[in-house]
């Protein structure tokens, strides 16, 4: 199996993050690496930069990682997590401007076919383009 772009799901809620990852695995299959994180380290709602970095590492692929986020802080914390990666890996992670559930399923579907990171991001963002 050739490498496929990895998918990271970042929600304020661990339930939403886990549920979205479950949908991706059931609908798209196991050939795409999916990692998720949700909630802050205290168990409340929120997002955490270290947990996002862990998720990026868990989903890591030489072809890159596409990150799907929900509201505000999930996006800014994901961007911060990307900034904290080593420079060589930074360019291989993108935060997609897409609805979290639909974007994750579509990005993973595209990734499963072996598409590039740019193609995966474009497909996830098709839903927000109109």
């Amino acid at each position, binding site marked *: 199996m050739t490498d496929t772009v990895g998918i990271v799901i970042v929600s304020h809620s661990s339930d939403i993050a886990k549920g979205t990852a479950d949908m991706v695995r059931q609908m798209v299959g196991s050939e795409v690496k999916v990692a998720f994180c949700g909630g802050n380290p205290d168990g409340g709602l929120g997002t955490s930069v270290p947990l996002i970095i862990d998720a990026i590492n868990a989903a890591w692929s030489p072809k890159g990682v596409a990150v799907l986020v929900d509201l505000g802080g999930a996006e800014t914390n994901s961007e911060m997590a990307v900034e904290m990666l080593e420079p060589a890996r930074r360019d291989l992670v993108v935060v997609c401007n897409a609805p979290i559930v639909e974007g994750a*399923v*579509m990005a993973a579907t595209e990734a*499963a076919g072996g*598409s590039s990171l740019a193609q995966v991001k474009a*497909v996830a963002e098709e839903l927000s383009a109109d």
Partner: protein
Amino acid sequence: MLDRADGQIFTGNVRLVHAVGMHARPAVKLTKLAKKFQAQISVRVAGAPEWINAKSVAKIMAMRAAHGSTIEIKASGSDAEAAVAALVDLVASDFPDGAG
């Protein structure tokens, strides 16, 4: 847009037997299978004005094909004949798990 002067176009029709039509899960399976072929592949609900790129999961999900409708498939390119056969089989067999 698919027609190439030098490329033969293969077509197929298949009835959508899935109970709730072309919803998300079948759409993902159809798109994943289509992506395994080099051919350019388009689908539409029979008689619809526009053909849809079978490799675009967003567009396939949005086509809203209903249970019992007929899906038209056309493809051009080196493996077009096999692509049409595979997609017809997927739809006719009601998107079995593990397919695509």
